[in-house]
């Protein structure tokens, strides 16, 4: 039990960082527009998430290195540079959306004043900088774990919304048919649940934490628990919306997490709505810390700069420079009035759609490298599952990419 608590962190944090502001918006839309019909995807998503995160975690424990380290050492410099450039671009755009999440949620929590974001966004940016830069990995991780607590609010909100459990059970029989919008939503769910920065983060975090192959069995359990918790959260959000806005036929109006929190109020009460907003706040803060941090790790590892929160700022200037730039840039851009935030998120999704297949293929290739992984490389059975999962994910993310790009040109399916 003690050994298990000692490894607790990277798996839970990485999986929950995937439920970011954009993710909560997507889950809200899925529930509000399609009710219970997408619930069946959740067990499938859980398995896919576990398979992908587990491989990255295993590589971190066995090699003691981050994903970017291994990419740089085993692929060409050009591939490495391309990966880092796309990852940094996508993450930068996503940081903006996280701070938008902080702005929206604090506005809801503190009485709806629009100006409140000019205080909360810079304050939270500074707070994240302080938490991450002033100490050890352990201390930073404790903050991240604390930020996952508000996610529990979604379970209470879901319960307060009184979902129709019969429908939940019936929805477990997969249904795909219907409008094209349904397919788009399905693909969006996958795209938002499994994002490249999650694999990059979990591997770097495990390497920095110093989890070894000997302790790996505990870490694996944590990856599973983290993934299950993350997808359950997504399910709770979908249930909230399904039981209220979808059931009353008003689900079409929901586009953002903040609208979802507002829309919940007449049905499940102020308390449920507040919990929903608090969850959005925690999610935005967590991803707002993890995105800049994983970018800093990735770029530093790939190009040979000192990385790690154990260092002082003057010992790892590039690492903290990237981290600080992303925090500052994200917070500042969010505060520019009238900026098309939705466009940023779409662009980030397009870049991630290009990035995810490359990252996943790289993971499978590396994790099967006997020289690197020794007896910890994928077994034949797991490999079939892994390659199958990744095949599906790559296909879906390519479809998602196609749909999003078409959408940019005004063509909707």
């Amino acid at each position: 039990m003690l050994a298990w608590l000692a490894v607790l962190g990277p798996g839970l944090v990485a999986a929950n960082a995937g439920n970011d502001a954009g993710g909560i918006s997507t889950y809200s839309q899925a529930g509000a527009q399609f009710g219970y019909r997408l619930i069946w995807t959740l067990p499938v998503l859980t398995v896919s998430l576990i398979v992908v995160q587990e491989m990255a975690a295993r590589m971190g424990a066995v090699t003691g290195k981050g994903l970017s380290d291994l990419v740089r050492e085993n692929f060409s410099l050009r591939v490495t540079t391309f990966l880092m450039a796309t990852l940094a671009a996508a993450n930068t755009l996503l940081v903006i959306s996280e701070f938008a999440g902080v702005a929206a949620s604090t506005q809801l929590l503190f009485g709806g004043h629009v100006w409140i974001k000019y205080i909360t966004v810079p304050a939270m940016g500074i707070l994240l900088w302080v938490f991450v830069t002033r100490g050890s990995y352990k201390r930073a991780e404790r903050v991240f774990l604390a930020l996952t607590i508000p996610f529990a609010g979604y379970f209470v909100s879901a319960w307060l919304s009184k979902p129709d459990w019969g429908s939940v059970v019936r929805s477990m029989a997969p249904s795909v048919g219907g409008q094209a919008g349904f397919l788009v939503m399905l693909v969006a769910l996958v795209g938002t649940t499994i994002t490249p920065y999650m694999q990059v983060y979990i591997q770097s975090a495990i390497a920095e934490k110093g989890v070894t192959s000997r302790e790996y069995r505990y870490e694996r359990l944590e990856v599973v628990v983290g993934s299950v918790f993350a997808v359950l959260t997504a399910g709770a959000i979908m249930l909230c919306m399904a039981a209220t806005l979808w059931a009353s036929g008003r689900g079409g109006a929901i586009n953002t997490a903040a609208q979802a929190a507002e829309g919940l109020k007449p049905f499940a009460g102020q308390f449920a709505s507040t919990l929903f907003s608090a969850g959005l706040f925690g999610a935005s803060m967590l991803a707002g810390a993890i995105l800049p941090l994983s970018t800093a790790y990735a770029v530093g590892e790939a190009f040979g700069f000192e990385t790690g929160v154990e260092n002082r700022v003057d010992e790892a200037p590039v690492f903290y420079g990237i981290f600080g730039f992303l925090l500052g840039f994200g917070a500042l851009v969010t505060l520019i009035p009238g900026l098309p935030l939705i466009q940023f998120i779409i662009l980030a999704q397009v870049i991630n759609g290009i990035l995810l297949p490359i990252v996943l293929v790289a993971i499978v290739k590396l994790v099967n490298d006997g020289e690197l992984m020794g007896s910890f490389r994928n077994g034949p059975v797991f490999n079939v599952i892994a390659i199958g999962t990744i095949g599906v994910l790559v296909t879906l993310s390519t479809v998602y990419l196609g749909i999003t790009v078409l959408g940019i040109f005004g063509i909707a399916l």
Partner: protein
Amino acid sequence: MRPAAQTPGPNVAGATIWHLSDLIGRSICTESGERIAQVRDLVIRVRSGGYPPVSGVVTRSNWKSFFIPWSHVESLDQTGFHLHTAQVDLHTFSRRDGEMLLQKDVLDKQVVDLKGRRVVRSNDLRLLYRPSGRQPAAGAAADGNGDRAGRGRTAPTLLLIGIDITTPALLRRLLPSAMKARVESSTVIDWRDIEQLASESPGVRLKIDHRKLGKLHPAEIANIIEDLSSNQAEELFEHLDDATAADTLEEMNEELQADILEDMDEERAADILEEMNPDDAADLLATLTEEKRDELLRRMDAQEAEDVRELLQYQEDDAGGLMTTDYVAVPDSMTAGEVIDHIRSLEDVPDVIHYIYAVDDLETETLLGMTDLQAVLRANPEARVREFMRRDLQTVPPEEDAEETAKIMSEYNLLALPVVGPDGKLLGIVTVDDAMELLLPDQFRRQVPRVFS
């Protein structure tokens, strides 16, 4: 390529400097000028000292790797590698132990920069090419390449002289060739200041003795190891001698200490623990599981293990947890001359002898007074310790709060403070270095606001 500005060794006329990234992909031509292949990699043999010469070129054809020994190479210039034979019998290349591929095993990998005391990634490699010359130079024969070219001519050599860790080196590799030439990078780490990590090239068994690293200060070794992955750290520790390994461990944070010790062979771990100061060894053992702790104590030398066991009973945040059993105690009936002989004959001498404690006898160790080395040296050799020792002592019980203990030491300007049991028995001493850590202001210890702890 520019002629070399400063190059090592004698006979440097016409020497040129090359980047590995620039050599990879160059043509290999026969005597008649026919291009037969492209360079895919360069082979060197791992050896200690000096700059390693390239011993062969690896090329690929029909999905197979072939090896051309360096002795076939006549010259190297902008048009490529020129062989002095018309025909080459290509040997299928398979790696042998101790052979290293520059592109596969060194480029883009992590190495230790001994001068900068840090872990760096090699963004490019620098090689020095010395064309064949008429004058046989003393240095060439020592390279072991022999006199292949014959008749008083020295063979051409290509030496690995350094690695480039700068960002311009990366740019040079990424930019199209027309723009490459404009990118300059000036800082190159001399290859002799580089320690390679065998675990970076898992495909081949490299025997690297890490002798160079062992010469650094333990605090610097600890800093380097903190930047390494667990596999790399394990590799380095294997090659440190027990005493250096112990000193290095003492310089690390507890968590990393425990990780490294747990990964180690138990017999070796016990040897290292014996070399550590008992208080540090006890602190480290306290973080391990009970099972592991007992196993390691069992393997340790009985006397050392006993000391550590005693210290393990105390809480970390009281004087007992802070103290060490590494002190010098003598019976108060000893003469000053005998004390000096006694210290000379000690097997385990403390790092620093802050004070010498006078006790009734070495069995019961009831503390009676103390003196210091200077007083012993200046006293009449026949004078007994009890005649010149100080009797007004500051002592603390083992339950005393650690911070309070540190405060007493700073108040009385003590280098060490004895910890005494209720029966007056000397249990250990708290030394100034351990106490200091408690008194340093928080910002020196880089702590976050303790909101979540």
